[in-house]
């Protein structure tokens, strides 16, 4: 296992596989950061239930654009241009969860609650990672992601308090996003994930991170009075 810490000036001395994996993980992270606003800005900014919610949708998008900027800078400094993801159509996003469009407030709330939480897990993979410029941008990004998760959770709880019909709509959103959240962790036993770990760019195997996520989310869903979806139904990456 590689245990050194790398600065920008050291990158050219690194093994080509390291540079390739670092560029790849930064590109995917940048795509995920800007992929969120591309899902919800178009329909949710005008249609959020209150003016304050509209402003919070805009603030959330602003924070994600800033996360993109920070990741793009780290990538750009090593010569990897990720700006193409800014104009990428949603159906071409790297991660399935970001393909499509959010058109209901339930989906918007559950997206924050479940998918931004996966985003936090993805970022936690880089804690103490071997590439120090990536490590340095994490604290502010994670703090803001925690705010998005909390907002999504609070809005989901608010919707659940509005009666059985609304609860079923939330449950439907949970069924949709839960499997996409689990798929975001990737294939069990992925050989690429193993190389990321070898080079100190990630901490956990895909299946371990997914398992940790389920252990965190399932009790929350139960406390909210929601059914935990079948974790295998509709999955694409097992």
């Amino acid at each position, binding site marked *: 296992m590689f245990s050194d810490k790398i600065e920008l000036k050291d990158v050219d001395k690194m093994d080509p596989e390291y540079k390739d994996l670092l560029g790849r993980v930064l590109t995917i992270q940048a795509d995920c950061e800007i992929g969120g606003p591309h899902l919800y800005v178009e329909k949710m900014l005008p249609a959020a239930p209150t003016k304050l919610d509209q402003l919070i949708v805009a*603030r959330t*998008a602003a924070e994600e654009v800033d996360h993109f900027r920070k990741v793009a800078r780290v990538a750009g400094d090593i010569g990897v241009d990720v*700006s193409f993801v*800014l104009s990428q159509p949603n159906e071409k996003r790297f991660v399935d969860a970001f393909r499509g469009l959010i058109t209901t407030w339930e989906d918007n709330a559950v997206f924050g609650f479940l998918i931004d939480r996966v985003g936090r897990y993805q970022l936690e993979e880089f804690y103490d990672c071997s590439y120090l410029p990536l490590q340095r941008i994490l604290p502010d990004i994670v703090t803001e992601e925690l705010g998005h998760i909390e907002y999504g959770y609070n809005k989901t709880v608010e919707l659940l308090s509005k009666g059985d019909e609304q609860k079923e709509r939330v449950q439907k959103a949970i069924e949709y996003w839960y499997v996409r959240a689990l798929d975001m962790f990737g294939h069990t036993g992925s050989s690429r994930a193993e190389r990321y770990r070898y080079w100190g760019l990630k901490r956990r195997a895909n299946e371990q991170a997914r398992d940790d996520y389920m252990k965190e989310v399932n009790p929350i869903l139960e406390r909210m009075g929601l059914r935990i979806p079948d974790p295998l139904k509709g999955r694409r990456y097992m």
Partner: protein
Amino acid sequence: MPQPAHNIEKLDEHLLEVVRALHGAVKQGVSHSNEPKVVNDAIADCKEILDVIMAGKVSDWLN
């Protein structure tokens, strides 16, 4: 040192300005929540800025 990506400096500066403008508009709306016109204008400003970002025409932003 690696050769940086073309335009990364300009893109970084541009997006930082965008983010600041968005936060400014949101702050204006939230702090005047009892003034509907100010709030509506703030939301409209955010929409206008975000529409440009969502269109993703990077070369237009930087030239």
